[in-house]
């Protein structure tokens, strides 16, 4: 078994672009321009995802006496620093909107597949052959969905899909398939589709028809496209060497429709020619008919396409032998002598050689090694089971094409060579390394599913947990890197959790970091979105922190009600207590001034706090305090209205009860006793009768006593000693004494 060949080492997201042919280790280079006099000092800070925020500052110069100076300001040079954001990763020209659309649709497919996987694992306990059997089909569905989102299917110039416009229609840039889609489909053929294994050569023919254009700058696709343009102006194309080369090439790689179509453009078909060129035309037509009857080992062919499909191998070989003998018979026919047109004769003979599998002619009729390989499979070894021998053929094809004159560096001319070869030869390590080197992290994150669909070996190397990577597998690493790219943008970060939630080791940790880095204090909507994600993935601690951040932000920015509500959701008792203290302080300070207003404002807030009464000492107090103050307000109002005495007395008694509750041990912080006792004076001096009994008055007295003692000891926390002036204490003491006397008398 080959050792993993990851010596190139790159994995995430800054792997070299294919353009940097110079060396595998060459890193991506970004350049920032500045206008500072000297080399700037750079401060680095990571922004969201894989963005980097850089501050370019002028150098600091230290004078002898330890004084710092900014170098440029001393030189009197205008040198403003700057802050820039660098988006890391590969340069690509794909429009942002397109990328985003792909990100959204592929995330959906990915999530669906992962859920299917989990269901499967649950239903059969994780082991089973039936599981794997069904599994590749699930992956195939996923693969086809993703492939469809990567762009529309396309074929060679003038092929069945593109027939109508031939020869005038030029291929539009937008219909050119992408390299990503080409690689995706090729991996699907080799790593996923088990059904396709029996007709693999034909699948490669199809693949090549779709993606020949992306293999390199010099392929049959380019050759035929050029021919298309030339043919428009030619009456007798058969006079041109390019024409015959073109037909032979199309035939070699199995684009039969193009070959037949081109043949029927032969000049001998024209009405004014038919008499003189009867035999010639007969030969052309016979070859065209033979081509249209070529047996193909595949389940079906598109409607109207030339060739005959055979699904069953024995039937195919029988038909093929028969067809081959017809070709050979034509090759040896006597009619050739009667054909006057030497070019046509030579051209047609060449076509027959291609059909008979002449290695030399196949070599001449193809440009790229992949084309040669396909031609070989189609015309030389149509029966081969392929799987084992394929890699060997492929290497031979590369070698023959390499010898035939491509002297430029192969990696520049054929950037995909190593990757395609690796896919053909099931060399998973190289596939992984090359895909990471060539493409952005999207591909690897999604391709993992294809690679592990049925290959046990790929499963073992991609899912093995590696210590050097911090205990994660390659599969997880690639998901993480892609998630990080998603995190970079505010329109895509919400997709990152989909991938992170399927990263068993580090996914949740990174998800937490991602959520905690959202600027939740900038908008409640964003905060709610983050909380929704927390709920989905059961991240209670993060939710608490988010609630707390938003709560503190609102509180600090004067939105007290919202602040309390969010802090309550955070169940942050410490901060709620601090909030209660602050509220209370504002109230007792406001006593002298606009008492009513403050109270009204407070009322709402305390109501809000009230729902969580049990959770906080401070809040319990504040709630009762609110009741007490409201009671006093009502009494004042009732007295003004001169209502029924009994009603007033009831209110008085209730207010007294609130007061007594407030002064129970552990309820009210000591620093609020004094304002309470001051407020109590009104109740103590109740004109109609004593409201408070002997025992109750004694409780009030003892609180006052504790305050005085604290003043003597000098540990009055949070109380201004001036408030405890003799005068104010005397006033309270007098009221207490009076009330005590009245209570004694009454009892």
């Amino acid at each position, binding site marked *: 078994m080959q050792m993993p060949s990851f010596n190139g080492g790159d994995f*995430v997201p800054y792997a070299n672009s294919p353009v940097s042919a110079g060396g595998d280790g060459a890193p991506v*280079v970004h350049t920032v321009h500045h206008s500072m006099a000297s080399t700037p000092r750079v401060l680095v800070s990571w922004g969201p995802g894989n963005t980097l925020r850089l501050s370019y500052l002028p150098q600091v110069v230290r004078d002898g006496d330890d004084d710092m100076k900014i170098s440029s300001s001393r030189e009197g040079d205008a040198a403003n620093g700057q802050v820039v954001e660098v988006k890391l990763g590969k*340069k690509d020209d794909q429009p942002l909107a397109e990328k985003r659309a792909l990100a959204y649709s592929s995330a959906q497919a990915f999530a669906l597949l992962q859920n299917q996987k989990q269901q499967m694992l649950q239903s059969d306990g994780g082991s089973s052959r039936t599981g794997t059997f069904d599994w590749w089909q699930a992956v195939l569905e996923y693969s086809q969905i993703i492939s469809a989102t990567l762009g529309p299917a396309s074929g060679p110039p003038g092929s069945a899909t593109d027939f109508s416009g031939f020869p005038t229609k030029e291929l539009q840039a937008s219909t050119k398939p992408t390299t990503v889609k080409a690689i995706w489909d090729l991996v699907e053929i080799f790593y996923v589709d088990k059904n396709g294994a029996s007709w693999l050569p034909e699948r490669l023919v199809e693949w090549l028809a779709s993606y020949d254009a992306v293999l390199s700058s010099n392929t049959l696709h380019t050759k035929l496209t050029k021919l298309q343009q030339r043919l428009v102006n030619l009456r007798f194309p058969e006079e041109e060497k390019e024409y015959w080369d073109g037909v032979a090439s199309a035939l070699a790689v199995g684009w039969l429709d193009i070959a037949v179509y081109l043949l029927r453009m032969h000049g001998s078909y024209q009405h004014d020619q038919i008499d003189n060129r009867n035999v010639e035309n007969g030969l052309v037509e016979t070859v065209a008919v033979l081509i249209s009857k070529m047996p193909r080992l595949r389940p079906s062919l598109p409607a109207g396409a030339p060739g005959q499909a055979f699904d069953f191998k024995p039937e195919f070989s029988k038909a093929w032998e028969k067809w081959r003998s017809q070709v050979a018979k034509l090759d040896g026919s006597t009619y050739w002598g009667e054909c006057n047109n030497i070019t046509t004769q030579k051209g047609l003979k060449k076509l027959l050689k291609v059909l008979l599998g002449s290695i030399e002619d196949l070599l001449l009729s193809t440009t790229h090694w992949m084309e040669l390989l396909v031609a070989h499979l189609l015309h030389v070894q149509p029966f081969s089971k392929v799987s084992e021998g394929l890699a060997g053929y492929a290497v031979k094809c590369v070698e023959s094409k390499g010898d035939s004159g491509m002297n430029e560096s192969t990696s520049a001319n054929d950037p995909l060579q190593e990757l395609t070869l690796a896919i053909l030869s099931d060399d998973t390590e190289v596939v992984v390394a090359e895909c990471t080197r060539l493409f952005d992290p999207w591909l690897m994150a999604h391709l993992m599913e294809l690679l592990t669909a049925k290959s046990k070996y790929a499963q073992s190397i991609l899912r093995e947990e590696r210590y050097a990577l911090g205990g994660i597998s390659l599969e997880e690493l690639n998901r993480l890197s892609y998630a990080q790219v998603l995190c970079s943008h505010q329109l895509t970060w919400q997709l990152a959790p989909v991938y992170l939630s399927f990263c068993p080791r580090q996914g949740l940790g*990174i998800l937490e970091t991602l959520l905690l880095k959202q600027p939740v204090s900038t908008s409640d909507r964003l905060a709610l979105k983050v909380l929704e994600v927390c709920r989905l993935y059961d991240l209670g601690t993060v939710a608490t922190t988010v609630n707390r951040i938003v709560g503190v932000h609102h509180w600090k920015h*004067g939105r007290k009600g919202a602040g309390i509500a969010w802090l309550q959701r955070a169940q942050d008792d410490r901060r709620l207590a601090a909030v209660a203290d602050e509220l209370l302080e504002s109230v007792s300070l406001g006593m002298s001034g606009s008492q009513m207003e403050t109270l009204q404002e407070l009322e709402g807030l305390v109501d809000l706090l009230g729902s969580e009464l049990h959770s906080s000492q401070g809040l319990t107090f504040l709630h009762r305090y609110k009741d007490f103050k409201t009671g006093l307000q009502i009494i004042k109002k009732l007295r003004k209205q001169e209502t029924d005495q009994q009603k007033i007395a009831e209110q008085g008694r209730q207010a007294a009860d609130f007061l007594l509750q407030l002064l129970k041990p552990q309820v009210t912080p000591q620093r609020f006793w004094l304002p309470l006792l001051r407020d109590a004076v009104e109740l103590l001096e109740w004109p109609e009768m004593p409201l408070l009994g002997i025992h109750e008055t004694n409780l009030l007295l003892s609180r006052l006593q504790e305050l005085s003692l604290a003043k003597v000891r000098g540990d009055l926390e949070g109380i201004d000693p001036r408030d405890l002036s003799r005068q104010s204490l005397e006033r309270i003491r007098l009221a207490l004494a009076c009330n005590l006397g009245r209570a004694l008398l009454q009892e």
Partner: protein
Amino acid sequence: MASNSTSSILPLLTLPDDVTHTAWNSSSSRLALASHSGTLHVWAYPPSVHSPATSWQAHDAPILKVVWAPPEFGHLLATCATDGSVSLWEEISSKDAGIEWRLVCQFPENQTPVLDFVFGSCLSGLKIVTAGGDGHIKIYETASTLELRKWQLQAEFPNVANLKEGIARITCTSASISWRPPVDSVQRPVFALGYCTSSQQFSTAKIWEFAEAYQRWQMIAELRESHEKPEPVHHMSWAPNVGRPFELIAVASGKSVSIWRLEFPLDSQGRLVVTRAARLIDHNGEVSHLDWDMTGMTLATSGSDGTVRLWQSNFSGQWQQQGIVKSVKDSYKR
């Protein structure tokens, strides 16, 4: 020639000409700028009406550094100036005054300037660790969660035990502190600290942990191999850890960056097992600043040559350069 890309560079802000230090908040939505004139600027990205750009005179002396507190304490900034003063500022708003930054408190003035300081939000409360120019570490703590006006000095100790040279003879030019990132959302009282000083002993980067049993800070590791001479530390950064079985700390000294691997928990002698995972030597100038990305997998380092380099570990644990951000002086004057 490696591929060259400029399209991925987005200019965000042109700075006032005397900026000495910049700091992004944890969500990368606010940037604080410290300046030589003592003015502090705060700027929001993307700009928003709810957080207008603002500036005020924060110190009489040049500001050395500015840092943000964890977001659960609001928009809270700490600044330190060359005269040794340290101040805390917070953003508040009220109906009358609108949004404004107010001074929360000032720390008692030190004789020597504070070279570096960081916030740490531990269970016991918010802490500030300062590294003084006299080689002393001070740890302040507050029990309050909203007001943050009252701080007390929890501990003070020199960054070296059993000092042979006289402490007075040592000059410290810079320092760097980095907290161990929270584990399972809990911030442990552990941080790494390194000095750049004239004394070798002083310079070694060390890891300090608050030992609950003894109620004091203890050194649990030195970041150096036993045979190596200590090197002055210019900057250090503890990598976020979201599931790695080991911790990583990057330390910039001179032209090189070392990445240290730490294995918690402590061994029987109360020490950490520390090994150097990499020594990166590609910078042509002194490495002055470094930062880890959110996954703790990519390290960005900046050198006095104006170049930023990005590093990642490959599958076999070797650290390699993956990207470069060069700076080029424009030939024309703007």
